């Protein structure tokens, strides 16, 4: 790294680094770009954009927070303190007519260095809203509750100044959903890399070209393509360009929002393997995806989200292999794969603005009973009234 203040924080408890260069304008530009991939397409609701307001908070205690413990990275076996610790995270959008949309409710998970957590679920289940909440990119009508501790910073309460100067790009790198839309169409990839290097690492002008080549190489972006414009790149190369930008600040946490949508299988595998390489180099990765094959390939752990809630959190090998998922929704999702039963889950996901008081999946669930009229508690990695053993006995 060129400047010491941007070195990866060894101890997450350390004081927030105060970078010498803190250009609000550049961050606002990056933010506006990132905001184009914000929740409007994912959530099935209209969210009036108000990017310059910071989301304010619900009164504490309005959402029950049941804290749960998860182990550290299963691959290197060093539990330690998690890099990111999310507890009771809820996001509600206030809509016209006093309606509310509960996009995320009571989500909790830990993420350690060198670990990949895949957040899977159907489109419109609140996955991308969760990602936007972690980056402080929610529109102005959003209210958050709970906490998302990254070292000593609570990402949900931190001010715009802190987020812009110390978090986005520096502690959390975003690998966007559609890289071609994320990159500025009127400037070359090299120019965008150089700008990001100058702003995030303070690289001096005479070094910046060399640094840009190095940054491109880290993401396996061919350096002879640096003078190209985004529209001259294939989908895979655009993805690598976006990844290179996300890696510039040497952020310990990478947040990938549907990085493989629309890519063909070979390209998905390549993209996913490259992301995995960054995980093995010590980054933590939160990958949001609906592509279960990609999740299986990359993840250490899997979190399944349904109607804004995490309904299952499991070790990836156990989830995709034996004994398989525990929650009926997660099992239905796997069974919908063409290499498995290829049978859809009956019905449609509920509207986030009109959720039932009990288990949101009950209406589509073959195991539903009267007990499902109450919200199930998340225990032992699953939020379901009918643990698998009981279900198998009934089936």
């Amino acid at each position, binding site marked *: 790294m060129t400047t010491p203040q941007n070195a990866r924080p060894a101890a997450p408890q350390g004081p927030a680094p105060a970078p010498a260069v803190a250009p609000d304008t550049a961050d606002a530009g990056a933010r506006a770009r990132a905001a184009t991939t914000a929740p409007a397409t994912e959530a099935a609701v209209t969210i009036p954009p108000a990017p310059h307001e910071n989301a304010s908070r619900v009164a504490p205690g309005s959402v029950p927070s049941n804290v749960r413990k998860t182990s550290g990275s299963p691959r290197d076996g060093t539990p330690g303190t998690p890099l990111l610790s999310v507890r009771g995270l809820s996001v509600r959008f206030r809509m016209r007519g006093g309606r509310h949309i509960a996009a995320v409710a009571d989500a909790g998970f830990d993420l350690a260095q060198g670990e990949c957590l895949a957040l899977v679920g*159907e489109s419109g289940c609140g996955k991308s809203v969760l990602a936007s909440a972690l980056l402080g990119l929610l529109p102005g009508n959003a209210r958050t509750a709970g906490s998302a501790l990254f070292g000593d910073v609570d990402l949900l309460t931190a001010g715009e100044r802190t987020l812009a100067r110390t978090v986005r790009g520096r502690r959390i790198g975003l690998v966007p959903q559609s890289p071609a839309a994320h990159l500025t169409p009127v400037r070359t990839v090299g120019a965008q890399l150089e700008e990001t290097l100058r702003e995030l690492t303070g690289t001096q002008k005479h070094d910046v070209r060399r640094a840009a080549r190095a940054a491109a190489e880290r993401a396996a972006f061919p350096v002879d393509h640096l003078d190209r414009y985004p529209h001259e790149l294939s989908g895979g190369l655009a993805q690598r360009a976006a990844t290179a930008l996300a890696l510039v600040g040497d952020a310990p946490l990478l947040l990938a929002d549907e990085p493989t949508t629309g*890519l063909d299988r070979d390209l998905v595998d390549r993209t996913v393997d490259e992301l995995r390489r960054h995980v093995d180099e010590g980054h933590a990765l939160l990958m949001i995806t609906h592509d279960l094959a990609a999740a299986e390939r990359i993840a250490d752990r899997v979190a399944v989200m349904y109607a804004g809630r995490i309904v299952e959190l499991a070790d990836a090998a156990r989830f995709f292999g034996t004994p398989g998922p525990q929650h009926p929704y997660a099992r239905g999702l796997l069974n919908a794969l063409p290499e498995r039963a290829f049978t859809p889950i009956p019905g449609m996901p509920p509207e986030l603005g009109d959720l039932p008081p009990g288990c949101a999946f009950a209406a589509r669930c073959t195991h539903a009973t009267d007990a499902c009229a109450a919200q199930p508690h998340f225990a032992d990695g699953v939020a379901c009234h009918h643990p698998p053993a009981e279900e198998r006995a009934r089936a």
Partner: protein
Amino acid sequence: MLELDAITAGYERGSPVVRDAHLTVAPGEAVGLLGPSGCGKSTLARVAALLHRPDAGTVTLDGRPVTGWRHRAPREQRTAIGVVFQQPRLSADPRLSLRDLIAEPLRATGRRGEAAATVSELSRTVGLGEDLLGRRPHEVSDGQLQRACLARALVLRPRWLVCDEMTAMLDASTTAALVAVVEEYRRERGAGLLTVGHDRVLLERWCDRTVRWEDVTTA
């Protein structure tokens, strides 16, 4: 029969995307065309759907050679083919409610009177609730919008279906649901299907026959 014979097609003079492609779909048959991104398979699908005029070659639809494409195709041929595209957001008019979106082909062929009954029946088939039909595309998810686009493709009861990466943007459950709707329609009506994609596992599970792009064309 839907026959594509020696099709060469492209967007710029002198640099065709598809060269000398041959492909035949029999009535009631489901054919999957497999190819990587950017190989030209979508262009070939557009030719088969009478949406893109090839530079050379012939398309024969139910024994009659096709002489016009897009609005120049005779209505009888145009309405025999239903098309579903990869990106529902780009293939849906943002100003129309889902109800109007599904009914649009009926309106365009002067059969507006049938719309109310047909749309409510079809929307049940594809799994769209009554409350969703009044919404416009920005108010629904990708999966819900693609369901509406599939309903739109089926509303004229076509004898042929062309699905260009219909499920590439969708999650596993929605994919399985939409494929089930297509298969149910084909069982009912005996329609032929040409589906284009890059997911080998999906196409082999879905189709009677899958062909690889290399075997279809010499480009």
